[in-house]
């Protein structure tokens, strides 16, 4: 078990803040053609979180392998490494109250430097890199911070419009403390001109929300002569405080 929550405070069990569905992409976005047949059309049934959504499993640091957070080498033959621009991606997992969230499982996946995924259904003509698998994972520390190493993925074409390309991106799955916080998103790279042309990016209506998914190049965190750094903070739903938490324990 990892240490969830601040020391001397019980884990939080309040309901989550309502999701801002205008900030998230809507389900039906015809510019992204696959959404047309995969989008629910009826209104969602709104409920205050129950214990079934407030709770969630715990992921302990002890489940992580030594190289899980290093995609440069975690699939490579001994002594070799993946091809591509070496980068580290770091940041914090916060909630909507600005509080760092510890013990969050972050799983990432991405294409290689040529824009090719290691997947049996992938047929892009860019070559596979024999030393790159494309998956990594880590768990946030006590202050919500996390870091992993990888190579910068390439952009790739995909069947949607006749000439649609994905900007370079890393897919993120984020598992906080409650099942109702479950989130999958993507990280983009500062300055990439492909971001604003992408039909998947454009499922998000608010340009500020798109900027929230765009990692900043951080030359202060760079490792000289080794790798550049991109900072990417992730925000999960906040929690309401409960009566239980407003009362001091042990009084």
């Amino acid at each position, binding site marked *: *078990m990892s240490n*969830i929550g601040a020391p001397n405070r019980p*884990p939080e069990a309040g309901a*989550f803040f*309502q*999701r801002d569905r205008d900030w*998230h*992409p809507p389900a039906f976005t015809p510019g*992204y053609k*696959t*959404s047309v*047949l*995969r*989008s*629910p059309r*009826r209104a969602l*049934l*709104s*409920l*205050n979180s*129950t*214990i*079934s*959504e407030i*709770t*969630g*499993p*715990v992921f302990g640091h002890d489940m992580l*392998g030594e190289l899980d957070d290093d995609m440069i080498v*975690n*699939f490579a033959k001994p002594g070799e490494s993946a091809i591509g621009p070496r980068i580290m991606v770091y940041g914090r997992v*916060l*909630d*909507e*109250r*600005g509080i760092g969230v510890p013990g969050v499982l972050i799983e990432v*996946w991405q294409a290689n430097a040529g824009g090719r995924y*290691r*997947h049996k*259904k992938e047929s892009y003509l860019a070559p596979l890199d024999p030393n790159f*698998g*494309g*998956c990594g994972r880590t768990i946030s520390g006590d202050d919500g911070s996390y870091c992993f190493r990888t190579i910068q993925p390439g952009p790739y074409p995909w069947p949607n419009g006749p000439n649609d390309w994905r900007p370079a991106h890393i*897919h993120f*799955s984020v598992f906080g*403390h409650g*099942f*109702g916080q*479950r*989130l*999958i*998103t*993507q990280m983009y790279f500062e300055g990439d001109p492909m971001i604003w042309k992408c039909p*998947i990016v454009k*499922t*998000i209506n608010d340009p500020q929300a798109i900027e929230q*998914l765009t990692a900043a190049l951080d030359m202060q965190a760079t490792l000289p002569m080794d790798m550049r750094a991109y900072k990417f903070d992730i*925000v999960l739903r*906040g929690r309401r405080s409960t009566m*239980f938490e407003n009362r001091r324990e042990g009084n």
Partner: protein
Amino acid sequence: MAQKLDRLKESPSQTAGPYVHIGLTPNFADIGGVYPDDLGAAMVGDKTKGERITVKMRVIDGAGTPLKDALIEIWQADAAGLYNSPAERRGAADPHFTGWGRRATDMVSGECVFETIKPGRVPFNDGRPMAPHLTVWIVARGINIGLHTRMYFGDEEAANAEDPVLARIEHKVRVPTLIAQRSGDTYVFDIQLQGDDETVFFDI
């Protein structure tokens, strides 16, 4: 002017895309040697308490075709109705049951299979017991934000009839979209993304 609330915005969702398996079930995607096992693959062991059941799920699009690239996660209470979670304050859950499972749907049939136990009842926010249920979360290419729903059990008619969440569904004809039918030890649950039988999805 009033003071600023200083709330942050939740990171906006983006689709899991067609290659979600690489990140979340790499062994299923034939990326071996990185993680020993796919997370959430085994829910029960020899010591897990409760009635063993099999749950077969599919996710079906608006043209009636099962999704072959979806990923489903379930979260449930143990046999006594307790969640194995730090936020569970009613007691200690069965230590041999995590309550969480993750499966990719089969790339040919679109089906996925969870071997689990039947959960006990847990209370609604006002204390009334909810009927046994699985909390279900679905992501896939073409799904822009993960879909939350629930699976209830067809052989729990009395509990289902008094379930406070099912009672919130205004159009009663839609209640059966959340109820899996039992045959032997197996429950079959088809999640319909669209159409007359569209599954009830939640904003929770």
